[in-house]
């Protein structure tokens, strides 16, 4: 199974954020967009075109699947998505990879990874 994950890693920013948005609960498209915005503190904004392009690929690869509507009052045009077992495993594998990246960064830059003021200028 690890080999399967390896062929997908590293994940693109959009795929990572969508998987992360669905890790907590099943969501519809707009819900995913809002959750991505919240998780990234507004720094990563996912447009609907990019979202559905990624969802199409993720559905094809079995990372996410259709889920049931949460309530009967939901707009029937909406579709809900949820992580599959494979998607959850892939997210865990990516998180583990990123942990390694952060560990390396800490080893070279020190424990405090916050950029110092004016470093970007």
């Amino acid at each position, binding site marked *: 199974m690890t080999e399967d994950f390896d062929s997908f890693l590293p994940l693109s920013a959009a795929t990572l954020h969508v998987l992360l948005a669905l890790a907590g609960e099943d969501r*519809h*498209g*707009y819900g995913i*967009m809002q959750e991505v915005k919240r998780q990234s503190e507004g720094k990563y904004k996912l*447009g*609907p*075109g*990019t979202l*559905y*392009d990624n*969802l*199409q690929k993720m559905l094809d690869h079995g990372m996410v699947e259709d889920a049931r509507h949460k309530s009967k009052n939901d*707009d029937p*045009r*909406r*579709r809900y998505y949820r992580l599959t077992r494979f998607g959850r495993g892939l997210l865990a594998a990516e998180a583990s990879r990123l942990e390694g990246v952060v560990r390396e960064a800490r080893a070279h830059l020190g424990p405090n990874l916050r950029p110092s003021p004016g470093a970007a200028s």
Partner: protein
Amino acid sequence: MSFLLYRSLVYLHPAAFRRQFGSELLVIFEDAVVADGAAALLFDVVVSLLRQWLLRSGLWKAGVAVLGAAVQVIPALMMATRHARVSQIVPARGAPIEADGLVAITVFMVCFVAAMLVAVVFWSIHVARLAAKRR
């Protein structure tokens, strides 16, 4: 007005994508238009339209195949017109065929057949993938 334009742009997406996500894109427009503004959503759907047709539909493969064919055919055609006049390509009955013209015609024909083969192979791969997706 902007919703009408947005809906038209969604409608122009490839059929498979439109069937799968078209209605959801319209719901998102209704949800997000106040917060994000119509201009941002219209820009996003135009980018999506280009992405779906040029990258995801495999149209770029047909474009590359045509370009590849042109790269091979055009120089051969230029060579043929340079070295062989029509009278040499189609010699009069009984007249000797000049070697230059014959070589040019042969090169042209080989390049043309090769280019067509490449185009057919790319196209059939694309069609097979589309058929597999539909299944």
